[in-house]
């Protein structure tokens, strides 16, 4: 199937369509949005389902098969914040805080983009390895930690609230929050529970966590479209450089990701998903962490780039692209 057909097939599948509907509703100035608690509930459901199923499938995987992919994931977790920081600082001439803030977003990962990639590989008949959710948990925090460390070093001690009485503001407290945030509890926790409860447990709960998954995802993407759509106005604020970077960074990170993943022995489907992880940008775990530790970083930059540029790009065009890259790398390797 040529790239254009893959693209078209992707665009006409539930996830991109629901996302597009959300964006369109905002463009038409509709006030419609999911209730906040429904949005949160859907994300909890999706993350826990992902973790449980991943954990259940982990019980069938050998440690050997995961070792290299895990190493590749960690390498991406170190690399992507650095390339992002470099591009922001030296190409874009942004402040160290803005560069570090952006690096935290692009060094981490978007779980929904991951899921979209997983669904895509299933649809094209090249399902990813069952242990991919485990890799997802590995990529969640290193990028944030590295980026915040860079930011802290560069800002120096002067701006630290040294005399202020807040321990909750300390970098350690913030990193602890990343580690114990919603995504980590549900994903890592879900992996353990899924692993421990085994087949009988998974069978009991899969009518809830598995059958409904794709529909719930669609509803979630509708709201993602609304959220992204309401940031489109900020595109003018952030300027052409960030607009370009929001598309270029995922392509570069996706290509590197696909290559490393293939070298690490992942299937084409698995490589597509790992590439998508590298290409995606966090908009859940990174923003509060950056806001608290790098107060002078402008959150409009990083959130708009992650949510309104990179996320739609990946959902609509990126994933099929990374799939073709993964195919090409796999063919070249043989």
């Amino acid at each position, binding site marked *: 199937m040529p790239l254009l057909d893959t693209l078209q097939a992707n665009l006409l599948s539930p996830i991109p369509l629901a996302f597009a509907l959300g964006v369109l509703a905002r463009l038409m100035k509709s006030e419609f949005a999911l209730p*906040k608690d429904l949005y949160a509930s859907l994300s909890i459901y999706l993350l826990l389902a992902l973790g449980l199923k991943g954990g259940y499938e982990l019980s069938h995987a050998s440690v050997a098969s995961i070792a290299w992919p895990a190493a590749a994931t960690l390498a991406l977790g170190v690399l992507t914040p650095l390339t992002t920081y470099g591009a922001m600082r030296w190409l874009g001439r942004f402040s160290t805080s803005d560069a570090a803030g952006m690096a935290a977003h692009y060094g981490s990962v978007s779980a929904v983009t991951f899921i979209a990639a997983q669904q895509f590989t299933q649809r094209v008949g090249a399902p990813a390895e069952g242990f991919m959710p485990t890799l997802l948990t590995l990529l969640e925090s290193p990028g944030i930690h590295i980026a915040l460390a860079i930011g802290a070093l560069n800002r120096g001690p002067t701006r630290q*609230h040294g005399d*202020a*009485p*807040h*321990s*909750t*503001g300390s970098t350690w407290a913030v990193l602890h929050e990343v580690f114990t945030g919603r995504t980590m509890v549900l994903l890592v926790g879900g992996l353990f529970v899924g692993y421990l409860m085994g087949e009988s447990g998974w069978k009991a709960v899969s009518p809830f966590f598995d059958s409904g998954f794709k529909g719930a995802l669609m509803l979630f993407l509708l709201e993602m479209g609304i*959220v992204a759509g*309401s*940031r489109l106005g*900020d595109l003018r604020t952030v300027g052409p450089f960030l607009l370009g970077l929001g598309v270029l960074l995922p392509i570069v990170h996706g290509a590197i990701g696909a290559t490393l993943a293939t070298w690490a022995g992942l299937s084409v489907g698995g490589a597509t998903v790992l590439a998508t992880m590298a290409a995606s940008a966090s*908009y*859940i775990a990174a*923003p*509060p962490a950056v*806001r*608290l530790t790098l*107060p*002078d970083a*402008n*959150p*409009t930059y990083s*959130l*708009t780039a992650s*949510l309104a540029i990179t996320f739609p790009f990946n959902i609509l065009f990126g994933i099929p692209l990374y799939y073709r890259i993964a195919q090409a790398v796999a063919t070249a390797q043989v």
Partner: protein
Amino acid sequence: MHTHPMKLVTIIAEPVLEPRLAHDLKQLGATGFSVVDGRGAGSRGLHATTIPGDNVRLETIVSIAVADRIVDHLAQHYFTDYAVVAYTSDIAVVRGAKYDTAP
């Protein structure tokens, strides 16, 4: 009934700051605080939350001295970088001692 004059300090802030502000208030001598979730629009329009405009509203009943300290602290540590609005008003409470911190 005899009432005591106190200050009410109201802080409207980005949600991410709630735990830090709660911690600061206690350190600065507040004996407690109340929080309500809200939304709003202002002149800066920093879109620091996924859903733009969300905020939290903290209120604390304190003595005049503590109110001053809180306002100073906010001005020094938050007003520059964060979307934080704060004001004080005069209130009367029964049992003024409840809101005084041990010296």
